[in-house]
């Protein structure tokens, strides 16, 4: 029975990784931009929620609701003012710029909040659990997984049921022809990044409530997000959820065998998938 419990915990952990990865997947799927600052933006979001919660005495969920529009605007401005200028045939400029952004965010947070670990408190919710047969599942991990599924469903609805989703896909296919249709690719990219920052805010909420965070943990979140996106198949949102689950399950199984193997097991699973299916489990267009 312990293995069922281990796998279920892994699946729920995969929800958190899928949240880390969904924004990255959205941005990559639309503009082929690899945002190396994605993990740091999640950490930045967690600090923003922390500041709002501390200043106004709100519950973290309410703090996240207030942070969301700010993050949306930050995403818009970031894409419009900085990242759009780096897009083109050469993939190096966006990598360099987002790498620089990552370092700037880390050092800015370090300056503003010190290297001390922080945490967002959810109160009794943190320790609440529900019994599912012989297995006990934490309410917070269940909420995290439910939020991940809701985010993926919402993003899919936006992509395939709305006019802006049509514009996302058309611009991703062919930005020049999209502009001939009256679409402004720079505007579409800014909207996509703004939307990704809403997802980042959700990820930041659960990052801050499920574990301690400090200014230096962004790059590790980026690695998990990357692995989830690549395992799932570049640009596939449901694949991203599957990728997160694969990493989560691999980590919990690895930890069950030997606690020192937790992180390593996730990376090994990533390598195995990469060897067997280099385009991921659910590549877009197949």
């Amino acid at each position, binding site marked *: 029975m312990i293995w069922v419990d281990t796998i279920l915990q892994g699946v729920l952990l995969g929800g958190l990784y899928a949240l880390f990865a969904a924004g990255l997947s959205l941005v990559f799927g639309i503009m082929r931009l690899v945002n190396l600052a994605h993990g740091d933006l999640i950490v930045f979001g967690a600090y923003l929620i922390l500041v709002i919660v501390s200043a106004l005495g709100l519950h973290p969920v309410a703090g996240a609701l207030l942070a969301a529009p700010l993050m949306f*605007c930050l995403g*818009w*401005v970031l894409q*419009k*003012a900085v990242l759009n200028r780096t897009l083109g045939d050469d993939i190096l400029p966006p990598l360099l710029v987002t790498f620089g952004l990552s370092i700037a965010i880390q050092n800015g947070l370090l300056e503003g909040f010190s290297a001390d670990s922080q945490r967002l408190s959810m109160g009794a919710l943190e320790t609440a659990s529900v019994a599912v047969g012989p297995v006990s599942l934490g309410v917070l991990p269940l909420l995290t997984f439910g939020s991940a599924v809701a985010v993926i469903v919402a993003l899919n609805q936006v992509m395939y049921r709305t*006019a802006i989703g*049509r*514009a996302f*896909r*058309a611009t*991703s*296919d*062919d930005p*020049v*022809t*999209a*502009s*001939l*249709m*009256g*679409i*402004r690719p720079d*505007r579409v990219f*800014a*909207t996509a990044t703004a939307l990704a920052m809403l997802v980042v805010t959700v990820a930041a909420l659960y990052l801050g409530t499920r574990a301690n965070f400090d200014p230096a943990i962004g790059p590790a979140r980026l690695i998990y997000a990357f692995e989830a996106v690549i395992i799932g198949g570049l640009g596939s949102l449901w694949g991203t959820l599957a990728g997160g689950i694969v990493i989560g399950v691999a980590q919990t199984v690895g930890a069950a065998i030997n606690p020192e193997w937790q992180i390593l097991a996730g990376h090994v699973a990533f390598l195995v998938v990469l060897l067997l299916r280099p385009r991921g489990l659910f590549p877009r*267009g197949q």
Partner: protein
Amino acid sequence: MSLLETRGLTARYGDFQALFGVDIRLEPGETVAIIGANGAGKTTLMRAITGVLRSAPDSILYRGAPIGDLPADAVMKRGIAMVPEGRRLFPSLSVEENLLIGAQHKGGRDFGDALDDLLTETGRDLRRAVFGPYGMPPRRPGLALGDRLRAAAFGPYGLPRADTGPEHTGAGYWSLETVYDLFPILRERRHSPGTALSGGQQQMVAIGRALISNPDVLLCDEISLGLAPVVIRDIYAALPRIKASGASVIVVEQDIGQALAVADRVYCMMEGRVTLTGKPSEIGRADIHAAYFGVAA
């Protein structure tokens, strides 16, 4: 005043000059054909008119207003739509979505416009705070110091835009239903991926996608390229109805016979220059041969 006019239009791809002082005009209700061999500059001319290639503002006039430096989306919103060479349908979109994307810009200002304006105004305020009045684009083109410096540094592209005329409303005859009436096969295939259709059907989607924006000017770039004669005939059969909806048309064609059959006026291009112009009834076979190939027949 012509509906659309180019005056001494030049265009470059890096160091390579592709157009050399091209003058063409399109009158309301007219169909103009542009013919020429491969590499004559026909597609470059279309790319310049639609804003894919930027040029000097006054080198392209639409309803008398300069549009040469406008980006493609802004040109389209003023009522100039293009059926690009090779169809260029969006593979991720179904037939119906490909058609609807042509109407994407309808609906006026949205949240993005408001946020864009906010950013522009914030940038303007920041420039004013840092540089004072010299950091600001003047309200009208003039001889302000900042203007002269920008003109010296960037040429005409550094200068503020002149009045480029109002945006097109997108309202009119063409809708999803009228496009399906024009090309009934598309109604049957509306949920298929656009790229799963035959070449002729894809061309119908590309034409419908342009029409659904209800353009005043429709640019058709090589719409018969790679299609069977019977399919070409079907596609050109739609032209009278397109013209009846109020659109003026520029057709770029390598098929001289087809071009002469549909056009009110013809321009022949060779090596980036217009080498012949006139009404089809006034142009002889030898004239076309000379203008097309640069040698007498």
